């Protein structure tokens, strides 16, 4: 059925005249739409592997340096992170609803929902910037006068420092090690959230264009492929965050751990 090229019964010439969005090399709109969504799905597969490289690094060091990762993770703001996750989920809802509005041919609703999506996206990025700024103030940005002193002070027991009190040389060594290892956590934190943020920025830009197209009435119940595939992208970026949230913020939040 749709897996074979959909060169169907529609007389080609007629369909090409009636549908301005149909590009010359496709037989019909159906085939064009299928191609576009299929392309986006493959692209998302690519994206999974793109983040996968960083996830791989994350897992390796998380296993090696668990105490430092746990302590660093705890220095992230749980409440802000949770709320920001919620913001992103709201944006996914508005995207899904806007595709639905397009399917029903409700243009104003569609535009409103798209604007809401952009709004949520910007809120997310704003909050992210706020969090990064906090990290800057806490000297948690790698190499920018990075310091793990606050982590060391708060986690004496976790890091096993209490047992080294009467061996200053070892103590110093261990502290330097903690410094290095928590810096690795933050390197990965910034790489991962940074890459995610870049994807968000691209997404917001993309939705700017989509909103404009929707406003111009380009989308109909039969044809709204650009909106649909932009939506797929947006949901994907959301899913990446759904994993980043527990992996970065929730490494070990147990009381007394």
């Amino acid at each position: 059925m749709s897996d074979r090229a959909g060169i169907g019964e529609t007389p080609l010439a007629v369909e090409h005249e009636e549908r301005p969005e149909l590009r010359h090399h496709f037989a019909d709109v159906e085939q064009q739409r299928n191609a576009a969504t299929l392309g986006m799905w493959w692209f998302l597969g690519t994206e999974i592997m793109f983040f996968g490289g960083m996830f791989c690094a994350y897992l390796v060091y998380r296993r090696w340096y668990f105490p430092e990762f746990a302590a660093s993770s705890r220095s992230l703001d749980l409440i802000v992170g949770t709320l920001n996750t919620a913001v992103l989920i709201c944006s996914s809802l508005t995207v899904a609803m806007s595709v639905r509005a397009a399917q029903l041919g409700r243009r104003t609703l569609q535009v409103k929902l798209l604007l809401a999506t952009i709004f949520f996206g910007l809120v997310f990025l704003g909050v992210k910037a706020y969090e990064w700024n906090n990290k800057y103030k806490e000297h948690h940005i790698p190499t920018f006068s990075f310091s793990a002193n606050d982590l060391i002070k708060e986690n004496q027991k976790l890091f096993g420092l209490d047992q080294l009190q009467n061996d200053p040389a070892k103590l110093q060594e261990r502290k330097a090690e903690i410094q290095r290892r928590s810096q690795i956590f933050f390197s990965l934190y910034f790489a991962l959230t940074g890459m995610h943020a870049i994807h968000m920025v691209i997404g917001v830009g993309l939705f700017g264009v989509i909103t404009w197209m929707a406003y111009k009435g380009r989308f109909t119940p039969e044809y709204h492929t650009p909106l649909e595939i932009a939506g797929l992208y947006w949901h994907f970026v959301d899913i990446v965050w759904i994993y980043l949230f527990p992996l970065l913020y929730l490494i070990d939040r147990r009381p007394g751990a």
Partner: protein
Amino acid sequence: MATAAVTTERKNYLNAEYGIRSWLLTTDHKRIALLYLLSITLFFFIGGFFALLIRLELLTPAGDLLTADMYNKAFTMHGQIMVFFFLIPSIPAVLGNFLIPMMIGAKDLAFPRINLLSWYIYVAAGVLYIYCLATGGVDTGWTFYTPYSSMFSNTHVVEAGLAIFIVGFSSILTGLNFVVTVHRMRAPGLTWSRLPLFVWSHYATSIIMLLGTPVIAITLVLVVLERTLNLGIFDPARGGDPVLFQHLFWFYSHPAVYIMILPSMAVMSEIIPCFSRKRVFGYTFVAMSSIAIAAIGFIVWAHHMFVAGISLYSALVFSCLSFLVAVPSAIKVFNWTATMYKGSVSFSTPMLYAMGFIGLFTIGGLTGLFLATLGVDVHVHDTYFVIAHFHYVMVGGAVMGYLGGMHFWWPKISGRMYPEGWGRLAAVVVFIGFNLTFFPQFIVGYLGMPRRYWQYPPEYQVYNVLSTAGASILAVGYLLPMVYLLWSLRYGKIAPDNPWQATGLEWRTASPPPTFNFDETPEVTWEAYEYDKMPLPEEVTLER
């Protein structure tokens, strides 16, 4: 010359429009293929220039032509250019781009504008790389191993890394286009089991491009960030692990060797049945072995890291898995030979390249097995044995396939025949030059000559002199087709639509094809390679 006046020329993709704009803004997959052809040829010559420097330096044991630093840069840029800017795009972006839509009876690829975009991305990356080269180059080896690349090298690693990051996107987009095209654009009746093996192989290649390339992209980004922002993820001095870099690098770069060889196998599967006048032996096996290679190719990467400090257990596992990947490769080789067996084989130029491919790829593949054997690898790792191995597969295999394919489809691409005598001569010269260049490297590597040094003990000189002599012959072999193919554009015989009496759809349209490939969408009712039902007509004689 006489012909020009006689015929009013048919409209085709070449004369449909004129002017530089009509090329730079084209979305015609055939024109984009030619844009790629020009650009990769340019890089082939730049890469070749560095090869020349390397071979000249190694002519004598002393470091006399280049300093050690310059030598490091020469082999680095030779490798990076040849791998990322020539071989990876070579067959897919030129022949694949040109042929896949025609082979499946489509007017174009699924995303013509993305296709053009991928070329521009390639060019942008190429310009950045040339900038890197012109401002002093890079010396990390094509592998960018950390922490040398991230901490110590004071050459232009960032530019080179970014250039290769960017060129990766052009390959991802090409892969994306191919996959979607094969799924969505096939002509009526063209089921998966009727697809030419060329298309199957490119489908497998595209999967690797899509799922492998992003990993090297992010890895290079991390290296660049490490240099610019001092992240330290791969820096042992700061708690990072350089072996992790190697895992991530080879997760892409081993499959990448299949990005280079699979398209060449694709070409083989077209040439061999055509010049044996037989159906491909075991169509399903050949098709499935492409997919198997793509899949298994992803689980062998750590065979490049046996002595890098990975665990012994995982070395054992990866060693075993590496043996597995030879199985589908061998299936292909056996099937091609079986196709030739009792066929009426004609030794036309493309077939000469194909036969060269089979022999050289077999040697390359089998020495891969030597290397995948843990104990042997400890001895020959980082020696010229490895260099010989991968040049047998990448140059003896992939480049031979590329040249064979260029000759086979040249009449379709250009509308002219190349001079057969010169073609055969060049094929033979390439074969001889190649073996003379690289076979001695097996020996000298086995004797212990390490790779990546600009000096060596005098007892290795014989082999190096042979090798450099071979390289000069090889260079002649590569220049010859450049000359006579260009010559043929003007003076070659006008090509008929189907000069080889081949069965593929691409031969059932004009040479050169019209812009939309077919005057009307073909309806496919036959299997691929029905050479038994396609006897040579009286007037056609293939060279014997």
